[in-house]
């Protein structure tokens, strides 16, 4: 089996089988990462370009490590949006990158749909490393991988996602991925950040975190972007923590063996209490490690389609 598309633009476009394939492939690569020599020659001679229009440390580094473990050459291009405003269009930049010999373009962009646009207009494989408030598919895949590692399944798990769902590309990708694999999802947060229309995706929506966490198997916390403050979505970070911050008392509402996840970087004391972030239930650092294996799988599989 292989993926149907040369690109990974989003989870929306993947079938459950394709998600399964990526997770299986990632499991194989995770074994590689545990060896003394953590590298395979799978993509030797290929070139991966990390084209990042937004500042990113962890995702870019994770993709870079993943690409290097597969023996591809890696080029990092960080473009500040301000220099783009001055001149070159996205398509021209992408074509320039292609002319430099890129086989895979890993793109992060502040505008939703940018990877889809590139995928349509260039021949290289395009991998979405986060586009606007749309999707962050590799984050969702590593979340699935981590949940599966801990729980042995995805199907029928009760998964609570807490925070700014509206603006979270991580949450969107997680919702699509988890739904496709049969998990039950509850979304929790302030009404302006968890629009009611999301119910149409077959999820439950809560404003009360205690009710939302009741009996959950997995608690996924989202980063509250501080720039949302002062926009009226909620009055203050202080009040946010009071209403939706994850404390030990709230964790106690979930199942005894519930795990706690966060895509990072965390705002301690705003969305998550330190004691919770650092507790034995937290799998936050596993997520980081698994991210490399999952991204290796994605790069490897899209290259296969590209042939």
């Amino acid at each position, binding site marked *: 089996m292989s993926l149907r598309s040369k690109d990974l633009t989003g989870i929306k476009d993947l079938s459950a089988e394709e998600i399964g394939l990526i997770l299986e492939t990632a499991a194989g690569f995770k074994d590689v990462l545990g060896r003394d020599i953590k590298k395979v020659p799978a993509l030797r001679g290929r070139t991966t370009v990390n084209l990042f229009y937004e500042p990113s440390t962890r995702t870019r580094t994770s993709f870079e490590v993943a690409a290097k473990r597969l023996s591809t050459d890696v080029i990092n291009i960080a473009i500040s949006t301000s220099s783009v405003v001055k001149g070159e*269009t996205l398509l021209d930049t992408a074509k320039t990158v292609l002319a430099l010999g890129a086989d895979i373009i890993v793109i992060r962009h502040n505008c*939703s749909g940018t990877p889809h646009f590139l995928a349509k207009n260039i021949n290289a494989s395009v991998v979405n490393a986060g586009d*606007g*408030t749309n999707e962050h598919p590799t984050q969702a895949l590593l979340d699935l991988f981590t949940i599966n590692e801990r729980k042995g399944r995805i199907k029928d798990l009760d998964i609570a996602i807490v925070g700014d769902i509206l603006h979270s590309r991580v949450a969107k990708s997680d919702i699509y991925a988890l739904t496709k694999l049969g998990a039950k999802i509850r979304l929790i947060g302030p009404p302006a950040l968890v629009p009611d229309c999301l119910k149409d995706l077959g999820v439950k929506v809560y404003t009360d975190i205690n009710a939302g966490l009741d009996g959950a198997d997995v608690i996924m916390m989202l980063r509250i972007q501080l720039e949302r403050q002062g926009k009226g979505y909620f009055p203050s970070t202080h009040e946010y923590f009071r209403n939706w911050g994850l404390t030990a008392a709230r964790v106690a509402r979930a199942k005894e063996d519930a795990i706690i996840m966060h895509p990072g970087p965390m705002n301690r004391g705003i969305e998550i209490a330190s004691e919770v972030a650092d507790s034995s239930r937290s799998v936050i650092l596993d997520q980081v490690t698994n991210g490399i294996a999952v991204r290796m799988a994605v790069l490897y599989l899209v290259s296969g389609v590209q042939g």
Partner: protein
Amino acid sequence: MKIFIKNGRLVDPSQKIDDICDILIEDGTIKEIQIPRARGKGQGAKEKKEHELSGVDEVIDAGGMLVLPGLVDMHVHLREPGFEYKETIKTGTEAAVRGGITSVCCMPNTNPVNDNAGITEFIIKKAAQEGSCSVFPVGAITKGQKGEELAELGMMFDAGCVAFSDDGRPVMDSLVMRRALEYSRIRKALIISHAEDLSLSAGGVMNEGLLSVTLGLTGIPSQAEEVMIARDIALAELTHGRLHIAHVSTKGAVELVRLAKKRGIADITAETCPHYFSITEDAVEGYNTNAKVNPPLRRREDLEAIKAGLNDDTIDVIATDHAPHHRDEKLGEFDLAPSGISGFETSIGLSMKLVDAGVLTLDRLIKKMAVTPSRIVGIGKGTLKQGADADLVILDTRAEYSVSGARFRSKGKNTPFEGWKLKARPVATIAMGRVYKWE
């Protein structure tokens, strides 16, 4: 110069004509409309026709075709001066004529903004020199369309502006809008409202709802349009100014206008555009920048409400909001692409679908696309009465054709209707005394 159009089915609501007619045009005006009384009966009639043809420079056989008053489009963007890379008065009016449109009212959001008589005069002069159809400028309500200070409405009106609008932007300040509706009364001038509450629509690029959330695009709620329409209706009631609501796109907006008309509290008219009764927000899927337009494409229930509003005359006018953009501007990030649809060359084809669907009779469609807009802006067009300007279009409603943006006359190839099969297509348009014909 004499032109004779024969055998066409003339539909002219201004004269309550719907019949097979012959039309004689002399020096750009309608000389005579002949309704053959003894159609197909013997030699007599035929001979008479032959006789009359003497001295005619051009005979157009419109057999099997519709002959209509040239369409009047009261909401267009010709982009000149300032954005000639998107469109010019020359290319824009060529595209209009290709779409059967013979009079256009061009919005003031040019660079510089048409906010003074000098710019108005420039547009009128340029249109007279290079235009293929009649061009009637719409002046800005406020200086620089900034929404702060009234522009010189009186002088612009005297220079030839037929209405005033800050189109593309609302007049956010309610007091400024009040003053505009009051002051415009000195010339009984029309104020056109681009209804959008900027604080509710801020950052928005498409309709707000599940689709905007799942595409990760910032939504514009219907209410951004509706609260401003409600405000402007209230201000029209207060001032007795003449208010026209541009590009109505929502169910709630239709209801507000309907209620205002029913109560008879204000002198209010409203328009919509073909895209609002033809497609929904679904067209945005795949981040199709050609479906990015302001107000945004809405939902099915809105589309149905627009049709109902057209049917019960809540909505008086169909205008294109022709908004051409350069290819490069639409080829990129959805968030950054400018809003607008190149509408001249699909308008009549899309609108005729309303007739096929039984939403409007042909007669009422022509009213909304020619007669009524002409009356609202007071330009004396939209009729083929004897002595009127011979602005007309001959429409072939039989042959199906496929929409291709690349083949538009307009510089703006930005259409969400690429590949659509449409039926009604102009085969000839007469405007400003000139005949344009296409195969």
